[in-house]
């Protein structure tokens, strides 16, 4: 810590705009803690189960099976690659909703620890998003056998996969951090966002793809910042290009970055006040 041994003021309020920078420094300083928190999350999630980490593959697989049947009932026989598309959609949406709800509740759920020992509180949300990113990445391994079965030729489009994952992580962390402090006074936030992530499931290309959307609705659909990252991961694995206008890609990218930066600022600004209300 403060090894040079000077009398230094602690816990000073810092400028609003410095939020992302402070969080960046804290990540550097507490990377052991973040990795231990992520390991704890993963260990606890699958503890006492025979299949262990296989559940992160099985869960989206089984869920996708159900959606596949649902799709066949409603729309008739889909395209051959449809099962792959749904699985990827389910995994990415799962990452988003778990990360978002987890980081919104990160202060309220850890109030016991927060009141007993000091360390930067954004660590909770960062570790939550981190562990969900690991689970999503493990889940995406399901697509490897499917790529063989469906005879897909992986190509450079695969590079879109990490980009999409990073966008989803930034968006969920940013929105989550900006609301975590408010959630300590108004729990309505977490109830509302549980609904948002459930409704968003249907309004995002999880069960459907952007190709199925009528041209007249495209503008509305693209307002959802999750459309681009989901399609990036999906088409990347499927070996296709993105097929979205660059204006929408830019919009989505900027949306993710700005919400991330603002989330950091808002969290750092209101953190001290929120901790008192725990």
């Amino acid at each position, binding site marked *: *810590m403060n090894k040079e041994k000077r009398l230094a003021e602690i816990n000073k309020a810092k400028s609003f705009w410095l939020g992302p920078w402070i969080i960046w420094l804290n990540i550097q300083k507490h990377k052991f803690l973040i990795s231990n928190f992520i390991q704890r999350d993963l260990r606890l999630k699958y503890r006492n189960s025979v299949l262990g980490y296989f559940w992160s593959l099985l869960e989206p697989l089984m869920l996708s099976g159900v959606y596949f049947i649902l799709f066949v009932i409603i729309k008739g026989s889909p395209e051959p690659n449809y099962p792959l598309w749904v699985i990827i959609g389910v995994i990415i949406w799962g990452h988003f909703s778990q990360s978002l709800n987890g980081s919104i509740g990160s202060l309220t759920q850890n109030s016991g620890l927060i009141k007993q020992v000091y360390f930067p509180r954004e660590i909770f949300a960062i570790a939550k998003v981190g562990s969900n990113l690991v689970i999503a990445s493990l889940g995406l391994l399901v697509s490897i056998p499917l790529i063989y079965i469906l005879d897909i030729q992986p190509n450079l489009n695969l590079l879109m996969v990490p980009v999409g994952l990073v966008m989803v992580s930034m968006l969920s962390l940013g929105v989550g951090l900006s609301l975590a402090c408010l959630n300590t006074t108004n729990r309505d936030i977490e109830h509302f966002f549980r609904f948002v992530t459930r409704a968003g499931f249907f309004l995002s290309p999880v069960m459907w793809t952007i190709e199925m959307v009528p041209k007249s609705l495209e503008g509305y659909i693209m307002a959802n910042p999750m459309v681009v990252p989901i399609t990036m991961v999906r088409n990347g694995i499927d070996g296709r290009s993105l097929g979205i206008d660059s204006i929408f890609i830019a919009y989505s990218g900027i949306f993710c970055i700005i919400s991330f930066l603002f989330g950091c600022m808002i969290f750092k600004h209101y953190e001290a006040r929120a901790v008192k209300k725990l």
Partner: protein
Amino acid sequence: MSETVIEVDNVSIKFPKTRVTLGTVESSLMKLTRFGKTQEDFFVALNGINLEVNEGEILGIIGRNGSGKSTLLRTISGIYRPDKGSIKSKGQVTLMAGLGIGFNVNLSGRENVYLYGSILGNSNKIMNELMDSIIDFSELNGFIDQPLRTYSAGMRARLGFSIASAVNPDILLIDEVLSVGDQEFREKSMARILEIVKGSRTVIIVSHNFTTMEQMCTRLVMIEKGEIVANGNPAEVIAEYSKKVK
């Protein structure tokens, strides 16, 4: 001449009073009608605290329940930000309070050592080096790889104290945890605290146990309603306390 390691300068802190409403439909509706109109009440927990602590001191803080002792320790450790005033400190500050809270009951004792260690800012490598001495001091040899939910309350507290005191903080804040464990362990932890202080580090203790406080502390501070009302020789401050309470 020993140097100042903690400087609490005119620190005030207040907490918003939250009304506890029962989760009935009626009270929810009441809340909704008042939405946005609630004027906030405040509870002043600390009111203009000035305190300097020197290197090598064992400072005891006494006071009645709810007088602000724990809030002061938490503010010094960085959990709460003062509304007014400032706190300066030198070196790493570690707070030991309600031992076992940072633990996860489904992880083993050993995993919790890593987890708690990293919460206190140490890498797994450092914790590996300290592991043997922690297990030794906590006397949990046979249990360290068992999940924590199988531990008794005393065992958890022992593990907590062993970790927090093993990581060698420059300034150790102890909140009501000296009474953990059995008589033997209490004596051992007191010896450990004296050892920490001997390494020219500093300890602040909050406790209701006046006998140990008088034995250990070099100075006592008495807090009442968020203000320091007495500061000095342990025996004198304790005498004053007994007078006040009567």
